[in-house]
């Protein structure tokens, strides 16, 4: 499961999620599957992928073994009004250093975290784009 709320602000949840997500990505990529469920959506460089299994497979099959994300900015906002679903939007920018590559690649990424009944969050929506140029 992803982060739990436990009375934290949406900003704190977002920060904790970002740390957790990129730590898993860089160290134990197959465990990212714990963050998604069958209704999750990922758009990766324009390619749309549905559901935890296909998303997991996509991330595992990316053409590099080792990588390291360096996060520059994290912005977050609640995705609904007070009393609504309690979702959190997270907007990240940073760079990803691939093992053996000279220069890191810059990227931006959006997450929509939705709470589960027990207080943890899962990734309902995710969109990733490299920033060229």
């Amino acid at each position: 499961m992803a982060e739990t709320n436990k009375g934290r602000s949406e900003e704190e949840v977002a920060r904790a999620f970002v740390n957790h997500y990129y730590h898993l990505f860089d160290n134990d990529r197959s465990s990212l599957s714990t963050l998604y469920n069958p209704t999750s959506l990922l758009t990766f460089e324009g390619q749309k992928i549905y559901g935890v299994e296909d998303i997991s497979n996509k991330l595992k099959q990316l053409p590099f073994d080792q990588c390291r994300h360096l996060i520059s900015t994290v912005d977050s906002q609640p995705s609904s009004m007070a009393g609504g679903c309690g979702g959190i939007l997270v907007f990240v920018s940073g760079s990803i250093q691939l093992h053996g590559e000279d220069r890191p690649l810059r990227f931006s990424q959006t997450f929509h975290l939705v709470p589960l009944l027990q207080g943890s969050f899962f990734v309902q929506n995710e969109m990733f784009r490299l920033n060229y140029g």
Partner: protein
Amino acid sequence: MDPDAVSKAFVEHYYTTFDSNRAGLVSLYQEGSMLTFEGQKIQGSQNIVAKLTSLPFQQCKHNITTVDCQPSGPAAGMLVFVSGNLQLAGEQHALKFSQMFHLVSNQGNYYVFNDIFRLNYA
């Protein structure tokens, strides 16, 4: 209507309005709308448009490179993720940016509930 078509139409409308009539953006936000602009948090359509119209440039043109969209959940909201560049009049180089919108439907019309903007520095 197809969500991809809706999001493309929205993006075009948003940036055309921004580039030609920035104050007109007020109709795209509501009371509860939130903007985070380069880390600064602003709430409500009046405050948001005050921020956007006070940005330190008169003329600008957004050129959009990518638009991705996904439905945000059961309430028919849409997440739209944009990247592109922003050319300011008189500046030699365009600024690269990424922006995320969460569009929420109010009786068939979409407005911006969430808006997050970041420049992408090299």
